[in-house]
């Protein structure tokens, strides 16, 4: 998928069509759409094409439990357009192919993971709006943020890495802690495949990191994060180090994603933060403050 180009006019029409509608009207699914169900799914592909000759796979996994549906809502109204158009304008990577995921809780939700195709055009907005905002989540302290990691590692095939050795980007977004493990029973239930043992979240991270640069964005407005901020930040930082970004305003998710990609691709962190106007600049500056000021080249010897 991802064989045509983004058209800003398509996006304006799509965005205008949902202006004034409620979240429930925009996200009208009342159950998981079969086309977004990862159960039994072999591969999602991000392929180079004439329209996108040097594609870059970007996965954005959104927590859709409880009140976190507000993230998907903001993305569908404005954020997605900002994300794609700013990547195309700033060119930190070439030819973005975006896949959106809805993340739930594998312990109790009916749709712990929903996955769109990789798309380069307005179809990603259409598929984003097909995600069921289940608003589940259990009484535990985590959601299935590792499910997109497993899916990306085991069920995506991306030309940016396979043809050019360039990793894709994978962002998860939510307000809770990372889970400790992914039991084999959950893999069977969510993905429909048998594995011989449970996997720790660290192991899944290792697996997904082979082909993706992994980030987690903590939504500070979320109720769980607000009441357990230190714990959430510490848990994620122990796992991902500097690739943990703190998002103070969920409507600025797109700017933070684009900025994190820019810094990872070697642009100066402070210049990137200053490149946004007004409130966005403040939110981005804070979010990417964990990233190194300047990422050195990724070839040769990396020193610590």
């Amino acid at each position: 998928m991802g064989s045509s180009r983004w058209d800003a006019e398509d996006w304006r029409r799509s965005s205008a069509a949902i202006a004034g509608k409620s979240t429930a009207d925009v996200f009208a699914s009342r159950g998981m759409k079969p086309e977004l169900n990862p159960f039994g799914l072999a591969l999602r592909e991000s392929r180079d094409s004439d329209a996108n000759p040097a594609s870059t796979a970007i996965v954005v996994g959104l927590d859709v439990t409880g009140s976190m549906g507000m993230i998907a809502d903001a993305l569908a109204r404005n954020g997605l357009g900002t994300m794609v158009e700013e990547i195309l304008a700033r060119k930190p990577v070439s030819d973005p192919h975006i896949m959106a995921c809805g993340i739930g809780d594998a312990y109790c939700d009916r749709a712990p993971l929903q996955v769109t195709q990789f798309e380069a055009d307005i179809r990603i907005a259409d598929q984003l709006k097909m995600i069921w905002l289940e608003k589940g989540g259990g009484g535990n302290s985590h959601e299935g943020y590792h499910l997109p990691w497993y899916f990306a590692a085991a069920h995506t095939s991306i030309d940016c890495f396979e043809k050019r050795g360039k990793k894709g980007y994978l962002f998860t977004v939510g307000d809770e802690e990372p889970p400790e493990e992914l039991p084999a029973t959950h893999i069977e239930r969510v993905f429909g495949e048998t594995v011989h043992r449970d996997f720790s979240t660290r192991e899944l991270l290792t697996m997904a990191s082979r082909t993706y640069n992994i980030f987690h964005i903590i939504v500070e407005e979320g109720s769980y994060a607000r009441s357990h901020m230190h714990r959430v930040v510490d848990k994620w930082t122990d796992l991902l180090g500097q690739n943990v970004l703190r998002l103070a305003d969920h409507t600025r998710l797109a700017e933070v994603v684009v900025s994190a990609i820019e810094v990872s691709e070697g642009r100066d962190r402070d210049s990137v933060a200053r490149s946004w106007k007004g409130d966005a600049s403040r939110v981005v500056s804070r979010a990417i403050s964990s990233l190194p000021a300047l990422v050195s080249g990724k070839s040769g010897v990396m020193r610590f």
Partner: protein
Amino acid sequence: MIARHTAAQLLAIPPQFPERLFSGEASTAELEYRRLAALWHPDRCGDPQANAVFAHIRKLYEETRNRLANGTWEAFGMRRFTAKDGRRYEIRHVRRHEIDAGEMLIGRTAVGFVLPASNADLMAQAQRMLTRFPYADERMRGQMEAALPSLPPVGQFETAAARVMVLSKPADMLLLRDVLAHYGGRLDARHVAWIISGALNLTCYLQYAGLVHNAISPDTYFISPRRHAGALLGGWWYACRTGQRLLALPARTVQYAPSDLLARKVTDFRTDLELVRAMGRELLGDVTGLRLAREKAAPEAMIQWLRLPASADAVDEYRVWQRQVLQDSFGARRFVEMALSHSDVYQS
């Protein structure tokens, strides 16, 4: 000889190959340069290309002088070094590889590692790591010694521009990268099996010794096709003791090491175990592992093991590999000949 070169012949010598024109002795090279300059000086030479030839000769001579001054003159499979103390060393080599930290010169019975002065700290780390290897008993020594560098190194010296270490190498040991290239980038799964067995066995030893190599790959691992043996000769400047803060890593390790270890900048066995799996995937033709199943590059059990993350214990990994993965993949063990010699790889 020099006088007989035509303008076209001289201009065809690439600037990076001054040895095709000049000798590797400073005084002789200077004499040769003076003769050529006299012949091709535009004031005295009527050839329409005299200007270009004169400039090109000068460039080649400058490169010659630089290399002789740096102690890194190379000609016809021979790298000549002049150490800071004035001693001269020569490394005969059949293959030269640029590596992350410098370059590697592969000879028949030795392999040389040349790290630029900017990586002097890395060479110092290799020297610290390669002082002695601990063994529980003679049996362990007998099993593992051949899979590790022979100590002490056969040569260590410093030039104005580089730090050099030379390790001995059995003549039948071939760099895995070169073997892989010889076979067009993909090995038969049965050969990958014995190579990974050897590498996993080595990680068990490293775990016992409290060492993490941090750079196991086809660029550092050598194999003997005849004996189905392996030896980890390269990349020791990345090695650390378990739990130590990381010093440096090659790009490949950054790609495949557990992210949480990179985030915490800490040395752990899991890195070597992940690198062995990555090596297995690469030997089968796809380091990502994504295409292996589609292309049926190996039995399913082997592909699944190579794609899944490593556990945290080398002995467990080795046990599962030997008792489950190899058994499920190939059944009873048997020796599969790999008909490949030093000359097949290095004289082709």
